[in-house]
């Protein structure tokens, strides 16, 4: 029994070591051991700074928008009946299962010169593709599911007795939402926001298609990594990757803090 337990533990830990921990540690070590100054130089490059700014701008739109959508969508799916509910449900999940490149292509076709939206927008002087709006739109698309997917099971679990009690006691829907519903789903919302944010910061495939990757203009942080890789600027590749990895590790710590508190419901 004990030998079996130890074997399984060794398999699980060994697997995590060779796939996750060792590669991450090696990148951290190589950045500092070989090319710390190169990494720093690349990070202070105006184009890199701009790339991080573009990433943050896209996230600054996508996260609040998808948080609002996620909560309202969760409420609609769990608490209401309406025509087309199955479709809404399917489309909310779709970005989880769909290649970001396909997302990028779909937006490319919709907002391109001859696309349904693109022909009108271009005619009125709005450039969407290869400009900031397309990056924002792509980021919003890929991060749609995360808040909704966290809120839906939580709403199901808490049931609607408390909400109905509030109603019976004369609370309006607005009051019920703020005083009863939101407090009981708040950790799911927080967890969803954390997931949404890291998805936004890490987006690559969809943005690579629609942004055009113009240096200093429409390059995001992840596209910058690829640019530096293609320019064989090792210090830059490692420096930017390390910053993104540091954000990811911070996210993991946040997630492990938020997760146990779900039990407080």
């Amino acid at each position, binding site marked *: 029994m004990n030998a079996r*337990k130890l074997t*399984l*533990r060794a*398999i*699980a830990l060994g*697997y*995590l070591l060779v*796939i*996750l921990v060792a*590669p991450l540690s*090696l*990148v951290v070590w*190589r950045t500092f051991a070989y090319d710390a100054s190169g990494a720093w130089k690349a990070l202070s490059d105006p184009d890199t700074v701009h790339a991080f700014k573009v990433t943050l701008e896209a996230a600054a739109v996508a996260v609040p928008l998808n948080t609002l*959508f996620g909560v*309202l*969508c969760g409420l*609609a799916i769990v608490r*209401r009946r309406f025509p*087309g509910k199955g479709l809404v449900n399917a*489309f*909310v*999940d*779709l*970005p*989880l*299962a*769909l290649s*970001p*490149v*396909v*997302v*990028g*292509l*779909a937006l*490319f*076709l*919709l907002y*391109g010169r001859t696309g*349904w*939206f693109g022909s009108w927008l271009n005619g009125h002087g709005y450039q969407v593709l290869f400009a900031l709006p397309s990056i924002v739109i792509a980021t*919003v*698309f890929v991060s*749609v599911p995360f808040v909704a997917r966290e809120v839906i099971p939580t709403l199901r679990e808490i049931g609607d007795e408390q909400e109905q009690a509030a109603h019976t006691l004369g609370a309006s*829907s607005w009051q019920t939402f703020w005083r009863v519903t939101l407090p009981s789903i708040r950790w799911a919302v927080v967890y969803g926001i954390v997931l949404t944010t890291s998805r936004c*910061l*890490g987006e690559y*495939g969809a943005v690579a*298609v629609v942004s055009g990757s113009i240096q200093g203009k429409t390059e995001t942080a*992840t596209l910058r*990594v*690829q640019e530096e*890789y293609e320019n064989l600027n090792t210090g830059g590749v*490692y420096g930017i*990757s390390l910053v*993104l990895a540091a954000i*990811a*590790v911070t*996210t*993991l710590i946040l997630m*492990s803090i938020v997760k146990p508190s779900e039990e407080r419901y």
Partner: protein
Amino acid sequence: MSERAGAALSLGFVTTFITVVVALPIAALAWSASKKGAGGFWDTITNPEALAALRLTLAVAALAALTNAVLGTITAWVLVRDDFRGKSTMNAIIDLPFALPTIVAGLLLLTFYGPRSPVGVHLAFTRGAIFVALLFVTLPFVVRTVQPVLIELDVEMEEAARSLGAGEATTFRRVVLPNILPGILSGVTMAFARAVGEIGAIVLISGNLPYRTEVASVFVFLRIQSGDPDGAAAVAVVLLAISFAVLLVVGGIRRFATKHERP
């Protein structure tokens, strides 16, 4: 604002948002792929390079998803039934592939399994590299679907089976496995979808050689870059169909599992 107007407004926002943000781009994609008609569509996806990319993607994605079905189940079991120092750190690390930008994941693997590999495993620009990249990005799925089921599963059932004379293997096969199977299946299916669509983790390490290491996402990407979005759309629609199929399967598994849930 009256109650009814508020409710209608929020429902209107939800349906408009999902239509504009997700459904319309998907419709535009389907429309574009259908422009050449069924014959043109068929010719595009059966072009040898596209077909090679699709075959490679499906095969390696299935292999990675199945590998993680086994290793993910073991990991989930260790997390729930074993106890040792550092277990909570291990639990947190599992989510790294969800939190890390995929392009950074690709770089990590290229550093460790590339030309300057410290362990002497040089996978860069081979199909092995694609397999490892897909293992990385799909690692959390099965762990995170099996873990909660194992937590809920009563240890006493397993102990009862053992005390009635069942060996470890029998206990696992007859008691544990039937309970965690829906979790494993939905985890594997989502992992498969994720692997089929992956690009960020693959693009740096695979070399993207046509017929050899070019996956479907990269094929679509390169088609767009070379000014053939309609050709890209045909292969993209195949990927879209796989995504919808996966969501249907996962939905089916979820319904089956809740219907057979013990109170």
